[in-house]
């Protein structure tokens, strides 16, 4: 699975996710990636999110929207909301994976509860920051 969240010069956020799904999945199985609110979500007033992981959990716990909702209704920061959903709620339910998220101030969050996640961000020209392991 691959994903991206962007904040443009007009202050607009967009998010996207694309995937082949899960090896050996039954044909017709759909994971969270194409499900708005689970694998992908964007709202200028809160954040944009792209997810990767065990899709069934991300659908049932509406992970991408849940992060935005925690910001909107509980006033959590992006970092706090993303961490609570991925490192606490999902772990309690046995869901493995991670998200990348971005808010309109340009704050970045990339929590994951697996051994690693290919991830990165860029805020300045020619200064891409890339990470793989914990």
């Amino acid at each position, binding site marked *: *699975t*691959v*994903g*991206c*969240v*962007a*904040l*443009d*010069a*007009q202050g*607009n*956020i*967009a*998010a*996207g*996710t*694309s*995937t*082949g*799904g*899960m*090896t*050996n*999945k*039954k*044909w*017709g*199985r*759909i*994971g969270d*990636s*194409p499900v*708005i609110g689970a694998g*992908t*979500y*964007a709202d*200028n007033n809160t954040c944009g999110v*792209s997810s*990767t*992981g065990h899709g069934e959990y991300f659908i049932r716990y509406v992970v991408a929207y849940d992060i935005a909702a925690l910001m909107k209704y509980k006033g959590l920061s992006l970092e706090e909301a993303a961490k609570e959903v991925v490192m606490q709620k999902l772990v309690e339910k046995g869901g*493995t994976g991670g998200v990348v*998220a971005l808010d309109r101030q*340009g*704050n970045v969050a*990339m929590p*994951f509860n*697996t*051994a*690693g*996640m*290919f*991830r*990165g*961000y*860029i*805020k300045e*020209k020619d200064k891409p920051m*890339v990470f*793989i*392991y914990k």
Partner: protein
Amino acid sequence: GPITLVIHGGAGTIKKENMTPERELAYREKLQQALNTGYAVLENGGTSLDAVTETIQILEESPLFNAGRGAVFTSDGKNELDASIMNGATGEAGAVAGVTTLKSPILAARTVMEKSPHVMMAREGAEAFAKEQGLEIVDPSYFYDENRHNQLQKLKENQEKDGTAYLDHHPDYKFG
């Protein structure tokens, strides 16, 4: 805020001991290329939607990641692809699911968002709509990757051996 872009290429049992230096470098370089591509769109006044679409297409075209080329296989040996996109300014969204002949699933998702009254379209219907809209159609073999196919075979052998859903024993093992 400042123009910013954040990306991922998948999560799972990605450990240093499982990665050769060459392969790790290949991943880092592809992720950097994707970031630089998306940032250039934003820097030139492009929209966040354009940046997301262009960045994800870089990763879809790389066999390193489980999306587009290099996607994992279903239990019957096919590549079924899914994608979605959302515009934070308007709340508009688009998605495709279970497609097998669309070269860029993220571009198809954006076309559903911008050129149809729907949010999500699946399988043959999504493919017929994308074709009608002029998106590039490829033979399913375009997505084929030897490593991924071997992964599927190995997993099936393991499943026959221990007869349980491999996932139960290895929750962190993201097959993709």
